């Protein structure tokens, strides 16, 4: 036999007991040809275009899942940032566009559609402003639409007017979806250096440098890495890094195979493979558990940032060797609500917002799926965003904030989102005001790191 039985059983074990999965197959669709001054025509164009490309997306991915016996959890669509294609619309509000996206997502059977987005790192156009102001109602009146706003880059600096505005928008979104614990905020992310080819929601959009239709794949296997690290016999940290690299390599190969086959069958270009350790609420499928397997008593204690840096780097190295198309965010995600180990660490008091912020300087995304008290002022939320954007801007990396000021909740409460979004413990924020700093507005200039030409 060409393949060793132990290799076969290893693959099967990764899938059945260690939660290895293709987290998402995301079809990116260019909507630039859909622009029209009349919003009804515009919406119709968008709907038709999405249906044209994505009609068979779900069926095709299900077929591939059966063929290889590897679960594909989510099927998603990302589109050109709506603020760009809607700029010529004469409508004052873009909520109906979000509803059109939602209808297309429903009719194609995908789990989420991303791209109700704007890129405003250096300033806002009238279209950008209309889009951002539409976000609360758009997210409250749809189920599957995700929204993102890029407010900073290393090249442009931080648009603090947009940061201040997003603080208000997040509060308003929470308020409009308060019957569901502010779930609208779980579908809204604020970015620095947003990648254009990211298949992970809520931040996925089809960037303007992308082809017409593209398949991006997100692979995830924290459970596999966790069990590989735990199986080592008294390893040094170098041994752990080596082990994670090898595991990441195998996971990445699996993703590349699925991505290429999906692209071939759907007549789309294969874009990137995003190898991210994205946890799920399932026991063992946890990034915090990997950090604890390295020898930390509880995630969040001293040494956590170093352990996360080791993990993130090893994942990237293993992935880079396995595929020439590694892109997106590729690294470790540290969402709180979606990671059973992170939730426990918060409840034990070992993991705080400040430590999470420090950890984001060495991981893939940022402050992700964090619930804060419902009465947190919008300026404090804006200040949390500003800090995170500064980390991204200075370190030339992507960072993001997805924070949920769940209405009516206080520190220690638990809020339930269900499914992959999980359960979030409400975490304390600093009581001292950031109001005056945030209200100054303007732009934090691009750092010296931007002068690389």
């Amino acid at each position, binding site marked *: *036999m060409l393949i060793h*039985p132990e290799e*076969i059983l290893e*693959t099967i074990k990764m899938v059945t007991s260690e939660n290895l999965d293709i987290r998402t197959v995301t079809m990116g669709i260019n909507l630039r040809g859909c622009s029209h001054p009349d919003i009804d025509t515009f919406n119709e164009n968008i709907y038709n275009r999405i249906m044209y490309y994505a009609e068979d997306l779900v069926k095709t991915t299900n077929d591939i899942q*059966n063929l290889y016996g*590897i679960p594909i959890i989510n099927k998603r669509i990302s589109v050109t940032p709506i603020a760009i294609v809607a700029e010529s619309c004469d409508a004052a509000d873009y909520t109906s566009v979000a509803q059109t996206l939602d209808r297309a997502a429903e009719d194609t059977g995908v789990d989420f559609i991303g791209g109700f987005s704007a890129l405003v790192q250096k300033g806002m156009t009238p279209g950008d402003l209309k889009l951002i102001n539409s976000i609360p109602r758009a997210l409250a009146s749809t189920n599957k639409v995700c929204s993102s706003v890029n407010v900073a880059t290393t090249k442009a600096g931080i648009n603090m007017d947009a940061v201040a505005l997003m603080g208000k928008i997040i509060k308003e979104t929470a308020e409009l979806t308060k019957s569901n614990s502010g779930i609208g905020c779980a579908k809204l992310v604020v970015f620095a250096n947003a990648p254009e080819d990211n298949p992970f929601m809520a931040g996925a959009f089809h960037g303007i440098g992308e082809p017409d239709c593209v398949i991006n794949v997100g692979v995830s296997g924290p459970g596999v890495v966790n069990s590989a690290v735990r199986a080592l016999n008294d390893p040094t940290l170098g041994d752990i890094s080596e082990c994670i690299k090898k595991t990441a390599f*195998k996971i990445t190969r*699996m993703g590349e195979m699925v991505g290429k086959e999906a692209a071939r069958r759907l007549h789309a270009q294969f874009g990137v493979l995003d190898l991210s350790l994205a946890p799920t609420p399932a026991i063992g499928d946890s990034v915090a558990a990997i950090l604890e397997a390295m020898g930390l008593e509880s995630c969040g204690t001293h040494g956590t940032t170093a352990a996360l840096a080791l993990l993130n780097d090893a994942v990237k190295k293993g992935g880079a060797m396995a595929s020439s198309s590694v892109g997106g965010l590729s690294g470790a995600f540290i969402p709180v609500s979606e990671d059973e180990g992170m939730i426990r660490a918060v409840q034990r008091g070992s993991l705080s917002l400040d430590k999470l912020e420090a950890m984001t300087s060495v991981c893939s995304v940022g402050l992700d799926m964090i619930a804060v008290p419902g009465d947190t002022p919008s300026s404090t939320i804006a200040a949390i965003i500003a800090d995170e954007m500064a980390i991204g801007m200075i370190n030339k990396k992507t960072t993001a904030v997805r924070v949920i000021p769940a209405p009516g909740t206080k520190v220690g409460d638990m809020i339930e989102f269900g499914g992959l979004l999980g359960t979030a413990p409400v975490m304390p924020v600093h009581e001292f005001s950031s109001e005056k700093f945030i209200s100054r507005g303007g732009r934090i200039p691009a750092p010296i790191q931007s002068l690389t030409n």
Partner: protein
Amino acid sequence: MSSSRFIITVIGIDKIGIVAGITQVMALYNVNIVDISQTIMDDLFTMIMLAQIKEENFDLAGFQQAMSEKGSELGVEVKVQHEDAFHFMHRI
């Protein structure tokens, strides 16, 4: 997908009639065995087969369902996966 070869794995508690039951379903669907190995691994009966499908429009989903139904009848877990799933992961 570069070939029509599949890896079939059967894992479960050992008992009489597993091989007979599984290969009977394969014969019914005209699935040929290229290679077969059977061993006890971690106290479990483990059979791994490399199988080939010759027909153009083979009903893979139907075959997979029939195999797993037979598996539950015999108290074992049966998986039918395209061989690329293993090649890609372990070989460069």
